[in-house]
């Protein structure tokens, strides 16, 4: 296979089904179809596997950490890890990646002798929580604001959209920094600032959907049948707005992780000694390139997770946009 073919395969063929193919079996939407399709596409299947691993691990580890924190048995947090991620061990300081003591040193250690692998695994739930929480709040707030504005139009629309514009105009990083000064830099303030700036895009999405759905035949038929606006929104508008948003949201998880990691890189968010992927990367910079593993490996991990989310989101957008691939 030439380079062209390999790249084509990676990007996924774009093809079409000729119009009006009446197919009795096979669905055109719903979880099963997305799943079947993603699995058939090898690249997306790998991405899906990685994300599933990431999420599953985050849930398990996150629960352990929370239980450990609540019951004052912090050690629970690293029960499953190869080593204690915050235990200083200067004897093993700046140990390069090796297979000895597998798997503790597989990614090497940092200046304090903590295993990079353990720290990555320990920090994962924070990223996952940020991604899922921010995106879901964005969807919910955006859904309420956008649908209301789009469906009712008029003054409600104008006012709500100007408010949305105002929030959209806030520069995320600057806001996060400002909030961290107010509320104290920490995980919670980062989450709050991310939620505050993340919903306007979804509001626009939902508003566009509401606007286009509003004039569709079945909404008007509903009106003729005597349904009031609330029922129409609940029964028709909401369920039909969700599909395109799902595809975008899949992409968006990656965006949140990237922004979150950038903030951590800048020193906002989780504070030392607790690890965070972004801050690990920035802390390792002074030791680059001799002790490259400290800075590069967390960066690679961030990149992998983000790319996987993006790939899945991209494929789903293709599906929803009707550009089925081979």
């Amino acid at each position, binding site marked *: 296979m030439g380079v062209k073919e390999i790249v084509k395969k990676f990007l996924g063929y*774009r093809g*079409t*089904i*000729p119009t*009006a*193919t*009446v197919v009795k*079996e096979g669905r055109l939407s719903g979880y099963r179809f997305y799943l079947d399709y993603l699995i058939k596409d090898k690249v997306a299947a790998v991405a899906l596997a990685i994300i599933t691993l990431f999420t599953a691990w985050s849930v398990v580890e996150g629960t352990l950490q929370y239980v450990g924190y609540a019951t004052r048995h912090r050690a629970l947090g690293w029960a499953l890890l190869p080593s204690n991620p915050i235990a200083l061990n200067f004897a093993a300081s700046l140990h390069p990646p090796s297979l000895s003591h597998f798997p503790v040193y597989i990614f090497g250690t940092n200046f304090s002798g903590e295993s990079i692998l353990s720290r990555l695994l320990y920090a994962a739930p924070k990223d996952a929580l940020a991604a899922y929480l921010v995106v879901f709040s964005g969807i919910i707030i955006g859904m309420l604001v956008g649908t209301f504005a789009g469906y009712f139009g008029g003054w409600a629309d104008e006012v709500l959209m100007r408010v949305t514009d105002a929030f959209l105009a806030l520069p995320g990083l600057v806001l996060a920094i400002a909030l961290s000064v107010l509320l104290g830099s920490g995980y919670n303030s980062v989450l709050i600032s991310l939620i505050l700036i993340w919903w306007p895009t979804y509001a626009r999405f939902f508003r566009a959907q509401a606007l286009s759905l509003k004039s569709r035949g079945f909404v008007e038929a509903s009106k003729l049948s005597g349904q009031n606006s609330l029922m129409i929104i609940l029964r028709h508008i909401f369920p039909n707005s969700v599909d395109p948003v799902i595809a975008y949201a899949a992409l968006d998880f990656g965006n949140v992780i990237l922004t979150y990691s950038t903030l951590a890189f800048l020193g906002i968010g989780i504070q030392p000694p607790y690890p965070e992927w972004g801050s690990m990367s920035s802390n390792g910079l002074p030791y680059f390139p001799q002790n490259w593993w400290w800075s590069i490996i967390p960066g690679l991990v961030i990149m992998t997770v983000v790319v996987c989310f993006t790939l899945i989101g991209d494929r789903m957008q293709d599906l929803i946009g009707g550009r089925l691939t081979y």
Partner: protein
Amino acid sequence: MSVLKVKDLVVEYSTVYGVLRAINHLSFEVGEAESVGVVGESGSGKSTLGLSVVRLLPPNARYAGGSIILDGQEVTRMSNSEARRIRGTTAFMIFQDPLNSLNPVKKVSTQLLEAVEMRCKKLGETYDVEKATREVVEKIRAVRIPDPELILERYPHQLSGGQIQRVIIAMALLMRPKLLIADEPTSALDVTIQAQVLKLMNDLKKEYGMSIMFITHDISVAYNISDRIMVMYAGELVELGSADGVIRSPMHPYAKALIASIPRGVMRDAPLEPIRGSPPNMIHPPSGCRFHPRCPFVMDVCRREEPREVGQDGRVVRCYLYG
């Protein structure tokens, strides 16, 4: 010497549902200065046929058999660069949606001049701006656009659907193709505008000696613009003949039913006879003759084996009723 000669063509799509055979062993010809109407409903493969002649099929489609000889050149095995050369100059394609046919950020005059430039490059002529401009104005007048100078200075979004289709036809005239393929060019237009465009195409065909392959789902439109009509069903040719012949005395049951389902006269005088059944599943088409589940004259052999094309005196039919 025919402009287009399609022999035993097979085109398949690979889809997530399986292989879809959109064109199944199709053969027909278009002669010089002749217009052939390709009539079929959705799923008949008519659009695929048009796209396959100019090599505009999507990436998941492939030529699985047969040949397409356009002006003496074999299209299916051409290289991409050769295909690019013949596209526009040997065969020009007009699409259904006028709004998507022109570049929205360029003026009409710019796009038409670009077309002339492209033609000169492909045919090895020298491009002279003044000469090209005169040609452009001449062709804009030929398509009967009122106030041609104004139209040239406009952007596509400032034109109506009918005007855009005329501009595209002007572009076609500028490229001087041997064959004009029109895929439902008037379906998105109002009745009176459609009539204007159809009349224009008829007149231009006579004036410029251009062959036309007119793809449509409306058999009345096909009748008004074609010398010969080819009826397609489920990717196959089911009947081919002169326009008058096919309309006045249709042979294939599908063609007959299609004509009988056109509303004519007032309800109480002539009740409609719809075609029973529904369009076929193209991933798993019916066995034997693809029309057999809906045919009022179905026989045993129709269910088992595909009928071959039977031809005589320029008339071709694919049906066991005729041999």
